[in-house]
């Protein structure tokens, strides 16, 4: 990544309390230069507060924020030189599309000719060439989103912040914009911090995802690690569907329903553990399957057709229930089991993941 196009962000010990509520609780976060990082969390987790602290709209109680080598925690927003995309776009209704995009350039006293060229180029970048003279009220939601984006990048900030940038769009458009945002980031190369409560969006767009809960970062990792190797039960539950099964520990072995679990990576000592199961990683097999995988036996409680997938609720022999997701494509399953039918589920050792069994940690 070209160093002149992006800056690393270092957040240290940032705390913000609203009365007794700690919106941010001693947050440490290092965003790499040129990285696309998403803050993911439920509403009220503090993810938006953290973004607002980065933008300079919320003053933390203490802590340090550095853009590159510069301490900015006390700098007002207009001196931080970060691009920002707001949830509802916050376009200026009294200005044209070009007027909106030219605004940050005008604030920087860019010469008229250069300004026009940059505005035209920004419109091109977001695929809205020729829309400059339109009024904001004439644009669709997706177009407004693009204008907001163009306005935030036209002055070539080295840091781009986005607050739920796609939440106001309908699902199809959102899916397309996720890819577009990611492509745009790859082309422009600025450090990007995005806030969302949509886990799929976070997994789709980001280099790394920071899962936030109650003012703390619970895990900061690449999307695949977040999904397949969650650090704790909160992350496992918040990202994706999952079931948690109790396991017994004896010596070096870990057993589920009396059967020793085959593990790709053994968690070692410690515990107690919970077996985390993702519904789409369970496969229905005939009883003669290879014993390289872990086998769970149970019977089908219910079968739900959900379009692209089939969801089975399976009750295991010990009474615990697990969801099983399979493709609904014809022939994807050797035979679709019926309600009440006995089934055997197989779980690959790589997908057999043990999670520390916290007793509902705070």
């Amino acid at each position, binding site marked *: 990544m070209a160093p002149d196009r992006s800056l690393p962000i270092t957040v240290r010990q940032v705390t913000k309390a609203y009365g007794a509520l700690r919106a941010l609780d001693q947050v440490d976060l290092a965003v790499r230069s040129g990285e696309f990082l998403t803050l993911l969390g439920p509403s009220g987790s503090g993810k938006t507060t953290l973004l607002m602290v980065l933008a300079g709209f919320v003053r933390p109680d203490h802590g340090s924020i550095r853009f590159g080598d510069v301490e900015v925690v006390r700098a007002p927003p207009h001196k931080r030189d970060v*691009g920002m995309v707001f949830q509802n776009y916050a*376009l200026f*209704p009294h200005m044209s599309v070009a007027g909106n995009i030219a605004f940050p350039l005008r604030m920087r006293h860019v010469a008229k000719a250069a300004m026009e060229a940059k505005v035209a180029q920004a419109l091109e970048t977001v695929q809205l060439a020729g829309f400059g003279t339109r009024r904001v009220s004439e644009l669709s939601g997706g177009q407004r989103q693009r204008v907001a984006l163009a306005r935030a990048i036209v002055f070539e900030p080295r840091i781009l912040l986005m607050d739920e940038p796609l939440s106001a769009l309908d699902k199809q458009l959102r899916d397309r914009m996720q890819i577009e945002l990611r492509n745009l980031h790859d082309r422009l190369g600025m450090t990007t911090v995005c806030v969302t409560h949509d886990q799929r969006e976070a997994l789709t767009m980001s280099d790394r995802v920071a899962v936030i809960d109650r003012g703390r970062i619970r895990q900061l990792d690449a999307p695949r690690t977040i999904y397949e190797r969650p650090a704790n039960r909160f992350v496992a539950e918040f990202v994706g569907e999952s079931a948690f099964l109790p396991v017994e520990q004896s010596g070096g072995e870990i057993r589920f329903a009396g059967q020793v679990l085959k593990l790709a990576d053994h968690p070692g000592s410690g515990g107690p553990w919970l077996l985390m199961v993702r519904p789409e990683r369970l496969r229905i097999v005939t009883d003669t399957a290879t014993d390289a995988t872990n086998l769970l036996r149970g019977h089908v409680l219910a079968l739900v057709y959900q379009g692209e997938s089939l969801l089975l609720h399976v009750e295991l022999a010990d009474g615990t229930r697990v969801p099983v997701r399979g493709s609904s494509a014809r022939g994807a399953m050797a035979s679709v089991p019926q309600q009440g039918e006995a089934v055997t589920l197989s779980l690959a050792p790589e997908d057999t993941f043990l999670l520390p069994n916290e007793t509902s940690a705070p």
Partner: protein
Amino acid sequence: MTGDADAAPNAAGLRRDAALERALLFGLSVPALALVTATMVLPVGWLFWLSLFDDDGQFGLENYRRLIQQPSYGRILLATFEISALTTLICAVFGYLLAYLLAQLSRRRAAILMIGVLMPFWTSILVRTYAWLVLLQRDGLINAWGMQLGLWRQPLALAYNLTGTVIGLVHIMLPFLVLPLYGSMRAIDRDCLRAAASLGANPVATFWRVYFPLSQPGLFAGAVIVFILCLGAYVTPAVLGGGKVIMTANAVASDIELFFNWGAASALGVVLLLLTAILLYAASRMVRLDRIFGGHGS
């Protein structure tokens, strides 16, 4: 099977229902229409009719000819517009500051302060105007205190002149400006201001480039209301102007009370009404323009 045959009779019934509903809605608006006709349309029509008869009961445009020929009427109309414009300007400045303060406060606190803005509405204009007289006259409270504190030596001429009239008018008109302005300030998207800041605008630039333009429709609406209400002011110039400030309404009153000239008074009323209507029309076109680009975001 329910096919077209079953649906056809329904169509007639539905049409009848729609017609009935329209008739009912019209019926409900009849009392209001009757009231407007009785209190607005008929008197104004009568006024117009009266203005077409001169002193001697001759039918013609004599009254209007005199309005144009006698410079005193022109002066009165001009003074009316000048005083109204001055009052509107002062109201706009004070009202903007007041509305801005209210818009920054929490809604609860703003509501409490808003009571202070609206309180004057609870007393009659006459009472308020005479109260100003107590404060502003030669040996009134303001002069007494000002001289006691040594701020000025001679009593200031605050009442029975243009100054007193404008002070009184500003006080009465201020709420009419603050209310629509406050509404449009509250409607400004906070994120627009944050966006401006994040894009590099300092607080001054944010105000002039974003906040002020977005509050303009409310300011404009309030200014138009104040200006038009001022055009018809009667009590305030009569009491606080001390006979030196004659606005159109005062001229109308003296035409009737002193000269029993209903025709001349009516003509003056009609001219003021027409000028006001023209102004309102022009203003409404500008306000509508404003609404196009001053509308609220999504």
